């Protein structure tokens, strides 16, 4: 199992190396190595590597791993394979707030922070609506998440229909499609503490996730405080999803599909599943970003669009083939 985990880590590392080499201006491996070893040396390659590609690679790692781990947390807690990180309304809440912020002319550097706060706020509201006894009711959580997401999607639609400027609509749609374009060290520095906190809380949730594999009642019977664990998982997944939304907008597919892929590779034991999701999600996000920067260079394809176009058919093929075998 550890070998498989190491394989996924190697895959993520390979994708990160690929991300450094490819892009609008292809760089030679030797030049990239030189720039990596001498970051203070002033050259165009050093600037490209350290100011453009490296922050994007780090952001892709944070976004991919956060979404995949958040998806695994929610799927484990709800015991529902259809759960994804945006189930708690994080994306819809952030989208509504950012659409209004862009329309109101808020400076672009502030929008990720607004998205983070609104996304997290929506998740807290959904959790409050789903509260029951000492924990949350899974069905209520899904219903509240879907209902609030629908409400905030309506807000987005209303704002878009009211928008006069084509620039505004384009700017917002680019955010909706999920993109790492133009994100730098500053954006990463703002979101990283929250993503790190989310990952740490996810580590605390590992024993609970394993116990929940036999259902809530049995998990209670073996000594799990189910209510407290549900809150822990909800807070962790909301922090991870909100950090990712703040960094890259709405990146679909990873949070829903990567946990399924990782489960096929390493099984459902959360001790290996969560790291596997983190490596697999990071690898996928890095690969999609590298491809998106290359195939229509000097322009870029949004990462969310690329992930859906390539990832979904690939996943369906792999999944159906595996199902047919069993």
């Amino acid at each position, binding site marked *: 199992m550890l070998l498989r985990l190491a394989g996924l880590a190697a895959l993520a590392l390979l994708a990160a190396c690929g991300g450094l080499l490819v892009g609008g201006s292809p760089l030679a491996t030797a030049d990239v190595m030189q720039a990596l070893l001498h970051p203070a040396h002033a050259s165009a390659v050093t600037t490209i590597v350290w100011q453009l590609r490296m922050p994007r690679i780090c952001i892709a790692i944070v976004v991919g791993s956060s979404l995949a781990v958040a998806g695994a947390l929610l799927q484990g807690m709800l*015991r*529902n*394979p259809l759960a994804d990180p945006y189930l708690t309304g994080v994306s819809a809440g952030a989208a509504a707030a950012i659409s209004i912020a862009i329309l109101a002319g808020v400076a672009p550097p502030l929008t990720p922070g607004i998205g983070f706060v609104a996304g997290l706020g929506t998740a807290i509201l959904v959790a409050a609506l789903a509260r029951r006894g000492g924990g949350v009711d899974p069905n209520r959580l899904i219903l509240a998440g879907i209902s609030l997401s629908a409400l905030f999607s309506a807000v987005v639609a209303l704002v878009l229909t009211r928008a006069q400027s084509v620039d505004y609509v384009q700017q917002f749609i680019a955010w909706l499609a999920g993109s790492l374009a133009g994100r730098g060290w500053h954006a990463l520095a703002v979101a990283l503490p929250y993503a790190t906190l989310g990952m740490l809380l996810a580590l*605390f949730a*590992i*024993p609970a996730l*394993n*116990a929940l*594999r*036999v*259902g809530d*009642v*049995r*998990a*209670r*019977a*073996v*000594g*799990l*405080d189910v209510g407290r664990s549900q809150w822990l998982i909800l807070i962790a997944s909301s922090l991870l999803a909100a950090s990712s939304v703040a960094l890259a907008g709405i990146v679909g597919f990873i949070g829903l599909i990567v946990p399924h892929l990782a*489960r096929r590779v390493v*099984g*459902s*034991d959360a*001790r290996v599943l969560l790291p596997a999701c983190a490596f697999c999600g990071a690898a996928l996000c890095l690969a999609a970003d590298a491809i998106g920067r290359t195939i229509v260079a000097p322009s870029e394809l949004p990462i969310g669009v690329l992930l859906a176009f390539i990832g979904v058919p690939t996943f369906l093929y792999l999944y159906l083939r595996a199902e047919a075998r069993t």
Partner: protein
Amino acid sequence: MIELRDLGVAIDGRMLLRDVNARVEPGEFVAVLGPNGVGKTTLLRAIAGVRPHAAGSIIVGGEAVDRLRPAQRARRMAFVTSDDALTDALTVVDVVGIARFAHHRWWEWSSTPQDEAAIEGALRAVRMEAYRERLFSTLSSGERQRVWIAMGLAQETPVLMLDEPTSHLDVRVAHKILALLREVARRGHTVLCVLHDLNEAAAYADRLMLLGCDRLLAFDRPNAVLAGDAIEEAYGIEMERVRLPDGRLRVFARDAIL
């Protein structure tokens, strides 16, 4: 030892059972009986601490269940239920291993030699050691039931509670499971088990706890419970009693006999 004092259990504010007073000793096998919907499962879940009770108190090993932390409770009582499907592809040993949750602190992620011994012992007790690496989803109903019981045994608690462990099982497998529970009680564990078949319960249990009409109707030796009127009162039908050559009673619904 389990002690129920003026216990009341409810679902959604509707009182199912009131003023239940009973005491179950270590090494006793008690079968909980009663018609559908009377509150057998709710009572068992309340005793196990997996749902709150509405009134009175439940004392296990000298302490009130609702004052115990979840892990403390799980080191005293195991609760076996079979009404929840698994969504993950878990092997038999994965499932039984989850029973060891309360024996670990949150940072202790690896299984200890004690865990391994408890898991192996539990699988051996239910004769499932050859199935340890089999996927749970590929097992028959009887095999699954044995895995759930192994999970309860691997928890290594003085009290073992089971909710309908013989439902959907043929008479041979049901017999094996009840004989196993009888053996568990003989080793000093308290066994509290919801059953539907009155004669099955009478054949294996030390005492029968008969529930009906929102209260505890009888709690006595099998012959005493089966001989009394409480059976008719609980189920609302007339019963025919048959005495076996060794003196034990068996009951049948009168219409079924005629």
